[in-house]
Structure formats: C-alpha cells, structure tokens
C-alpha cells in the first residue's frame, strides 16, 4: 500500500470516529450560536417569519433599554467580578491546603467541599428559601435575632439590598467544582524536586514558593480552572430569579443578563431582541475567557 493511500485511510477513519460528536456539536452548540447572531438582526415573535431590522436590536439595547443599562449590566458586572475571582481564589487556596494533609482526611474534606457541585441549582432553591426566609421563622433571621445582631427580620430574598449578596454567597458555596479538583490533582502532581531546586535557588518562604514554584508548574490546571470558573459564574447567574421567585427580580436587584434574555425571549416573545442580548453575553464571556487565557496562557 502506498504511503498516500495509508494517509487517506487514516484521515477517513479519524473522521468516522469524530463524526457522531462533531455532528451533535455542530447541531446543538455551533449552529445555535450562529443562529443567535442571525436572529439578533431581526424582529421575531416566534410566530411570523423573522423580519430583518439590521442593528436596531443592538441600538435599542444600548440606548433605550433603561433596565439593561441601569440594572442588568451593573448587576452582572458586580456579580461576575466578585463571585468569579473570589470563588476561583478560594478554590486554589483550598486545593493548596488540601494537598498538604494526608490522603484520607484530604479525600473526605475534598468530597465535602465539592459536594455543592453535585446539587442542582433548582433543587437547592427549596433549601435556600427556608434558610433565608424573610420572617422570623427563617433560620438565618432566627439565628441573628437570637444573637442580637439584628432587631428585625431581614427580607434576604426580597430586598434590593440583600438579594445580590445572597446570590454571591450561594454561588461561592458551589464554586468548588471541576476546576477545584483539577487544581488539587495538579498540585499533588508537581515534581517534589522542583521545590528542592527552588529552595536551593533562594526561595525563602511559603509565599515565594507559591509564586515561584506552585503557580508556574500549575499553569495549565489553573487555566482550566479559570475557564471553568468563568462558565460557572455565568451559569449560576440566573439564580436570582429562582431565589426571589419572580422574573424580574424585585426592583431588578438580582437581574442578570441571563434573566433579561429569559424575560424578553420566553415571557415577551421578542426573540430577536433576546438573541441580541444573548450575543452580547456570549461576547462578554469570550472577552473574560480571553483575559483568563492571557493571564495563565503560554506567556513565559
């Protein structure tokens, strides 16, 4: 058999193995994204055929959608800039500490820290609603009243002031997911000789050790973890609506981009406009991830 034929056969078999994944990947991930882009330039009410309107949806979104500019964008920025990095740093610190205790206790503690990732957001709402209930029968209120820290029960989930902090707290609670496991495994696999060499080369304390040895050796896992953190943060973002029990959330206090999309897409049936918001969100996520790649990618 000639070499070329061999190569051809190899290609064909590769594509055969790839085909099922590739078809489904295209159909349910790539095409929807392309579709969203196309729809974003149209007026579409889900009944009539989409009508081309050019940039109108984007112009409306950025110039006359008061809710979007006043609440949704600031909320999303606040939520993602706090919950994302904080959850990520927390995962790293927890992984770093776990790597320094013996295996048995490490496994148990890591399992507990990971366990929130096994719950579903919707199912947990039941639990949060009881814990953060707004009258004195709520567990948190009852506890704080008992300790004398507050005088009246706080409306955790209905107040404009507290909904966002609760959302961030709940997101942080479940931030130790796949990225956390990846970083933990990564730290455990760093070659011990690297540490010895580092100390000979003048690393003086644990902090320098993290900066000069742990983080550089862990870059690939840290990048993976960071990408996962970005995605989780935006996915968890819809939580305000389930917690408050209404879309829009009370005075838009917990309204994030995902909720805004749902509001327009599934409650008002303005699908074209909702798609424009989707595109803006996807671009925003891509920009965040790009930043993350810059931070941890092959810069050295």
């Amino acid at each position, binding site marked *: 058999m000639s070499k070329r034929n061999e190569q051809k056969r190899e290609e064909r078999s590769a594509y055969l193995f790839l085909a099922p994944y590739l078809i489904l990947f295209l159909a349910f991930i790539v095409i929807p994204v392309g579709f969203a882009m196309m729809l974003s330039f149209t007026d579409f009410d889900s009944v009539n055929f989409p009508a081309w309107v050019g940039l109108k949806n984007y112009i409306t979104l950025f110039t006359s959608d008061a809710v979007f500019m006043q609440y949704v964008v600031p909320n999303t920025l606040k939520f993602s800039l706090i919950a994302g990095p904080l959850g990520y740093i927390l995962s790293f610190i927890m992984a770093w500490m776990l790597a320094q205790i013996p295996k048995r206790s490490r496994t148990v503690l890591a399992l507990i820290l990971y366990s929130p990732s096994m719950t579903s957001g*919707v199912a947990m709402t039941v*639990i949060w609603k009881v814990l953060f209930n707004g009258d004195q029968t*709520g567990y948190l209120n009852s506890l704080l009243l008992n300790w004398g820290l507050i005088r009246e029960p706080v409306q955790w989930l209905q107040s404009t002031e507290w909904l966002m902090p609760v959302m961030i707290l709940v997101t942080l609670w479940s931030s130790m997911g796949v990225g956390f496991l990846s970083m933990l495994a990564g730290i455990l696999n760093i070659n011990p000789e690297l540490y010895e060499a580092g100390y000979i080369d003048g690393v003086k304390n644990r902090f320098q050790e993290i900066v000069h040895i742990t983080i550089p050796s862990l870059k690939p896992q840290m990048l993976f973890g960071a990408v996962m953190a970005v995605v989780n943060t935006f996915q968890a973002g819809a939580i305000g609506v389930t917690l408050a029990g209404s879309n829009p959330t009370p005075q838009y206090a917990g309204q994030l981009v995902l909720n805004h999309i749902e509001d327009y897409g599934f409650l008002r049936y303005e699908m074209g406009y909702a798609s424009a918001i989707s595109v803006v969100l996807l671009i925003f996520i891509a920009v965040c991830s790009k930043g993350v790649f810059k931070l941890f990618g092959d810069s050295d």
Partner: protein
Amino acid sequence: MASIQGKKMNPTRFHPSQIKFYAILIPMAILTGLPIVFIFSQALKPVNELYLYPPRFFVSNPSLTSFRKLVETMNSSDVPIYRYFFNSIMSTLLTVLCTVAITAFAGYALAKKKFRAKNLIFSINTMALMFVGAAVKIPKYLIVYETGLIDRFAVHVIPALAMPVGLFLVKQFMDQIPDELLEAAKIDGATDWYTFRKIVVPLSKSSLATVVILTFQTAWNTIEASELYLNHDNLKTFAYYMSTLTTTGNDVAGIGMAAAATLIMFIPNLIIFIVMQNNVMSTMAHSGIK
C-alpha cells in the same frame, strides 16, 4: 531545611505543622456541608417540626412523613410517580452511555489520529468550554423544533450529548497513551476498531469514568428538555416535577415535600461520585490547558 519544605506536599502521615491547614479546612468544610446536612435534616422532619418556632436546624424525631406525602401528591396527579422516575432513569442512562461512547470515539481521533483539521477542531472545542448553553435557549429550541424532536423522548438525550468538557478531559488523558503501543498493535494486524476497544478504552477508563460522573450530574439534574421541549407530562422527568414543587409548594407541608425531593435528587449524584472519585482525581491530573 530546604528539602523538608518540599516534602510538605502530599504527606503520608499527620504532622503537627499541618494543624494550621486543618484549622481553616475544617471550618470551611463545615460551612459548605451545613446546607447539605440541612437537606437531610429538613427532609426527615415530621410536620410539627417543620412548623416549629424558633426553627431548629437538626431534626429531633426523624420520620418519613414528607416522603410519604410526596408519593401521595405525585400519585394524585395525572402521571403516576413511577413514570417520572422511569423517565429520569432512562434519559439519564441513555445520555450517559451515548455521551461516553461518542466522547471516547472523538477523543481517540483527536488524541491518536493524524489528520489536517485535528488542531483546529480541538481548539474550537477548547473555546466551547466557555459555552453557556442557557444563553442560546431560543435558537436551540428552533433547532430542536426543526429536527422534529419536540414531544419525543429522545429530546432528553440527543441535544445533550456533545459535551466539550468531557471531550477535552478524555483527549488530554488519551494523549498519555504511548504511540508505540498502538503502532505495535497495528503491525500485528489489529484493526482500528479492535485497537480502540482493546487498548485505548481500557487505558482511558478513569477519564471515561469522569465523563460518566459529569454527564450523570447534568442529565439527572436538568429540567431543560421537560420544561422547553415536551408538552406531555408523561414524558417529563422527576427533576422537572421537583422544580414545580419549588414554585408551588410554599406551605409548610410543601416545604417538607420539596426537601424530600431535593434529597432524592442529591443522593444518586453523591453515590456515583463517591464510587468513582479515584478516577476523577487521576483524570484531573491531565486536565490542564496547554
């Protein structure tokens, strides 16, 4: 001094210097674990304890009242309780099996085959790691509609099968399999399919197990298909039924039932993860993005 420092990672036994880590890790684990413990406690509370004021975190007389109530309520609806469970179990099983299969195929091609678009496909997949599905619900609905999947059971499975994270982890793991091994098999006359089944799959078991866990978690918890693509209640899943409890069940009995349902949702995830957690850790060792 220097050599002692390096041995601090992955220690084999307890040493007093580790106390400071425990001092932070244990409180963190307790804080994280409390809501989980609360699911158990709340689900097992008899009605009078759900009413209790001031509320008590831990159950004192555990009972199965809430579970019984849940079964009763579900039975009084149009769809019998076993139907929801059957749908959940079938859709989860099918999703897990098919995802593992197509991910293993694709991972093998991307890790071990030589073809032109290989790097391009892998980097597109890496980009898709940041894909947030909820953002494109509308166009996805249109595609599901066009493919004729609306109101068919398969809609639980087919749109969920391509999982970029899964492929990413499996491909990275399969990269570790030495090429010589596959070459040797080829020289011995093994077909591609044989090599895949007898060498590649057995050697990538941990990464495939990790895909099982991740897919199971999503498939078991998701309500997307039931909520958006299915109109008949007898095609919907338990996860969906449970989500309707969170919106309607605001009375005290409803809270108990919802907690019981939450517990039922959580337990299978926990068991699967505990059984397979060793595989996860060895997969994650190769999870870096290079």
